[in-house]
């Protein structure tokens, strides 16, 4: 099978972060600072990625601003004409840092807030950072750097969608991404506290559609659909190892940010292998390409080319086997597991703070 080249490289520069979000996408086992890649190692990865025709890079963490080599990494991406996007909490963004990022060639920045209210933001992030974040947003909105605001949605802020959109508009934000929680890593561990009711979700969508129409041409709004809502699965990342490549803090390569959850695969390291070998030849990246790996009901399903059997990580996390159909699919023999989670969300009472699992 010919393997076409990846478009996007996501670089997890560090797992260090000032925040402790309940839905953090980092794996439960965080990589320590002394195991982080050196900046020279990242530069070599970028050179190799350019040869593989990568055209876009996401710089993430943890908090990528905490990684000292960040400016050199951005400069190297610029040298290869790779579009660079920094995904940050906004903590540590000063006017000086913003000017430096611009002069290095950064092309866009994404800042997240947890809520329109400081109190809820603190519950989610495990720390009071709202004022710092709003200040960072204002700073960037008034700079030349293209800005997107990201807000992860769940049962504690879906009712705030109108306030969040108004807040974004008042700050001068022109791109707002409302992303429903994806249940991997810490979000999976905190699922019962985060999963919204179906009613909450449909109410919020009505508000979103109305606001989106009102703001057309003034602010671009997007809605990222969540897990456990649809009864048809979403194709994972446009297909396993078909467009994206993630390099983690210590150099381990994955087809997506959540894939380290799949314990039955051995993921290759950039310390021992070239990016080209990892992408084209490594067993982990080839494990779920094409259709031969599929079992029933996917193998003979009429939708298999549309949804590719859904998310491999969800299949592993819920059904214990990454080759199974995504249990979100109503045709999956494990679909009852998803229905149980949804039913539990409907009956969940107020959460008790002691049960929350914050990342360290």
């Amino acid at each position: 099978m010919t393997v076409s080249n990846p478009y996007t490289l996501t670089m997890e520069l560090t797992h260090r972060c000032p925040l402790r979000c309940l839905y953090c996408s980092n794996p439960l086992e965080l990589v320590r600072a002394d195991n982080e890649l050196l900046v020279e190692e990242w530069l070599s990865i970028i050179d190799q990625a350019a040869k593989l025709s990568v055209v876009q890079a996401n710089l993430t963490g943890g908090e990528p601003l905490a990684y000292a080599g960040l400016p050199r990494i951005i400069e190297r991406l610029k040298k290869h004409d790779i579009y660079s996007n920094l995904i940050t909490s906004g903590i540590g963004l000063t006017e000086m840092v913003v000017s430096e990022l611009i002069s290095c060639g950064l092309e866009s920045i994404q800042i997240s807030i947890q809520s329109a209210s400081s109190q809820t933001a603190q519950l989610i992030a495990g720390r009071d950072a709202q004022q710092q974040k709003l200040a960072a947003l204002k700073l960037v909105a008034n700079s030349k750097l293209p800005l997107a605001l990201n807000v992860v949605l769940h049962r504690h802020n879906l009712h705030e969608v109108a306030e969040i959109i108004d807040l974004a508009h008042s700050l001068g934000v022109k791109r707002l991404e409302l992303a429903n929680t994806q249940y991997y890593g810490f979000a999976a561990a905190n699922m019962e506290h985060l999963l919204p009711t179906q009613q909450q979700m449909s109410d919020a969508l009505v508000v979103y559609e109305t606001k989106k129409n009102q703001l057309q041409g003034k602010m671009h709004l997007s809605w990222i659909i969540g897990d456990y809502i649809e009864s048809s699965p979403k194709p994972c990342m446009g297909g396993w190892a078909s467009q994206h490549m993630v390099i983690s803090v210590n150099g381990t390569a994955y087809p997506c940010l959540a894939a380290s959850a799949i314990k039955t695969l051995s993921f290759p390291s950039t310390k021992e292998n070239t990016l080209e070998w990892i992408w084209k030849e490594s067993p982990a990246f080839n494990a779920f390409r094409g259709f031969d790996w599929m079992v029933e009901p996917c193998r003979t399903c009429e939708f298999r080319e549309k949804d590719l059997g859904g998310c491999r990580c969800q299949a592993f996390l819920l059904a214990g086997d990454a080759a199974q159909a995504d249990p979100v699919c109503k045709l999956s023999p494990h679909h009852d597991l998803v229905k149980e989670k949804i039913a539990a969300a409907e009956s969940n009472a107020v959460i008790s703070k002691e049960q929350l699992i914050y990342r360290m």
Partner: protein
Amino acid sequence: MADGLENIVKESVLQMAHGVRLKDDEERQCKLLLMPECIVKLNHSASEVLELVDGNRTIEMIYSELAVRYEDDTLHRDLAEFLMDALSRGWIELKQ
């Protein structure tokens, strides 16, 4: 801040939205639209239109240039549809 779309007229000038750019991808032999968290692989006609969205040309000028290349009765409607779609997807915006 760009105007709302209700103010769009044929004299409106269009530009690429902030943070969005075209890239000529030699390896894949196509034009790509690069933006935060998203890449769009453009077909030939979409890239022809977007190359004319440069912050100087009005919608009318873009139409005239394409009309020279294509003698097509549906060009007017196709272009209007494409531009409205590109505006609503946040690829392009009205220049103030």
